[in-house]
């Protein structure tokens, strides 16, 4: 069963990558190896615009979502009692389970109302970025919170005890300790934004097509090999992002365990050598 599941997950991706190197115009017909679709791709201004727009949105989204998400995560993990704590945690994680169509639709309504009332924001890069931040910050908050739960709170108390004011504790102790979670959160938010089609389609304006939107609109006109090439590039970027995030999270833990083992095995020599 599991193998079947994996097959359905990965075979299409390999097919897609495979056909992106197909020389033939017709997708299912193999016409020999070629990278001409990649070349056509990079010659198209429309594609370039979409790539740049998507990257801009992804980077801004990742940065703001990490900032706000970290604050929310810290509040959830560290402030033991504040008014509406349960409600707050619930609301933070609601976007994780909310259907994207609903999120997209409601945000669109909000943006329309706002621009009627105060003339801002105009639909396009701004609205897409805001929409992406709202749902990716939930992911960051959850990552940061679960990291903090695993960190002994007495570290922060010890810093306070030594005379550090709360903001110094945050900068000197909390942030370095959750740094891996912040990096992982940033990368996750980045890829979430790069992937998103539904919400972006709802809230984008005329002329602002993100990469997924471009691919989707092209595919509707029929399967073309250059789309395969484009998709292959996205797969590559996302894969690299996920691998880096996972690597950063696991490396620290491994290093710690390794050092711990070394210290334990050395322990007896040390106690001899200082006497």
């Amino acid at each position, binding site marked *: 069963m599991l193998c079947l599941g994996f097959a359905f997950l990965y075979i299409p991706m390999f097919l897609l990558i495979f056909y992106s190197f197909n020389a033939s115009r017709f997708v299912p017909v193999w016409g020999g190896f070629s990278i001409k679709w990649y070349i056509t791709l990079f010659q198209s201004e429309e594609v370039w615009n979409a790539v740049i727009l998507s990257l801009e949105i992804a980077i801004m989204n990742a940065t703001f979502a990490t900032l706000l998400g970290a604050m929310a995560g810290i509040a959830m993990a560290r402030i033991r009692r504040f008014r509406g704590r349960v409600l707050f945690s619930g609301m933070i994680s609601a976007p994780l389970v909310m259907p994207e169509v609903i999120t997209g639709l409601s945000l669109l309504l909000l943006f329309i109302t706002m621009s009627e009332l105060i003339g801002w924001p105009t639909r396009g890069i701004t609205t897409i970025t805001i929409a992406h931040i709202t749902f990716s910050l939930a992911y960051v908050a959850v990552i940061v919170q679960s990291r903090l739960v695993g960190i002994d709170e*007495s570290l922060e*108390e*010890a810093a306070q005890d*030594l005379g550090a004011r709360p903001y110094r504790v945050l900068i000197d102790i909390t942030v370095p300790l959750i740094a891996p979670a912040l990096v992982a959160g940033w990368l996750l938010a980045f890829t979430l934004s790069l992937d998103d089609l539904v919400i972006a389609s709802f809230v984008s304006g005329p002329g602002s097509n993100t990469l997924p939107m471009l691919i989707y609109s092209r595919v509707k006109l029929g399967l073309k090999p250059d789309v395969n090439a484009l998709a292959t590039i996205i797969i590559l970027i996302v894969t690299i992002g996920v691998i880096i995030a996972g690597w950063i999270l696991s490396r620290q833990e491994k290093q710690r365990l390794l*050092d711990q083992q070394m*210290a*334990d095995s050395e*322990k007896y020599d040390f106690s001899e050598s200082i006497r």
Partner: protein
Amino acid sequence: MTQATDTSKLFENQPWLDPDAEPFVKIRALTKTFGSFTAVSSVDLDIYEGELFSLLGGSGCGKTTLLRMLAGFEEPSSGTISIDGVDMANIPPYQRPVNMMFQSYALFPHMTVEQNVGYGLKQDRVEKNEIAERVAEILAIVELTPFNKRKPHQLSGGQRQRVALARSLVKKPKVLLLDEPLAALDKRLREQTQFELMNIQHQLGVTFIVVTHDQEEAMTLSTRIAVMDQGQFSQIGTPTDIYEYPQTRFVANFIGSANMFEGRVVENGDNHVIVRSSHGDLSFYIDHSFEIRENIGVSIALRPEKITLSREVPETIDEYNTVKGIVDDIGYLGNFSIYRILLENDKIIAVTHPNQSRPRDARHLAEWDDEVLLSWAPSSPILLTK
């Protein structure tokens, strides 16, 4: 390491006996409740400057909670704390003149030993050179100079414990709070570190408040001990007071071991009390007076090392402070042996006896199933009403 000085000698003036002496840490009617559970229940405590004061008690009796209130991490539900004459009510942890050594050490994992120890000084905007100097100085005291560039996870448990101690001492706080400082060490290292602690305390003259549930550790370290039970103090006193003159059954049992007897006061004279045990043919003659009514139910505690064991059993034995029995079990502990003596009424009494000569040239004082006589001085039985 130089030999440790006996801290009780430093306190011959015993400030706690002087009604005019001003306590350094003053706790009044301090209470902490978590929901409906009372962790610390209306305690009063005076601690004097330079003391090494121990809080001793079983798990969950509220020791850590009391310490955390002193450090400012836990807000008292009611009551007051003042340190050096200043009320601590609205003073946040980072402005209190106390430092704490945490039960888990709480070393910053991303900083080296040096940075950990220097962190507190950096918060006080001490000059860089001075920080380096003071850090080097304190690391030398705890013998960690060769490890100053290591991260905490590259240290052994005992080394980490000393980093934590150095970090909390380097700011020369007025009061140092130590939460089970030696709990993570093995026995040999623990005993050695106890003496180091006492030396350091003596060198720096800081007031120490040490939490522990190891009574031997408390006896060795402290000028005074507070025995805690269910959020309250059962007794506060010097190690000798607590051991020789426990005031409650809990303290008598918790500190050291004691044979307990239930009994009834049969005679209350001017300078003596006679208690008749409900365990058959056994009466205690105590050579000092108590304000107590006759015929009242009391407990008698008798320390195992205060009992003399003899194999010469006369036909008729004294009326008071002696009893016959049979050796039921012998435990050889090296420096001394424990004899478990079965009395006629099936009660078992533990008696300890130092092994002054080697077993090869002297057999046990008594052997299994020997009939023996137990006796004790009239000053030894401890009369307890609570």
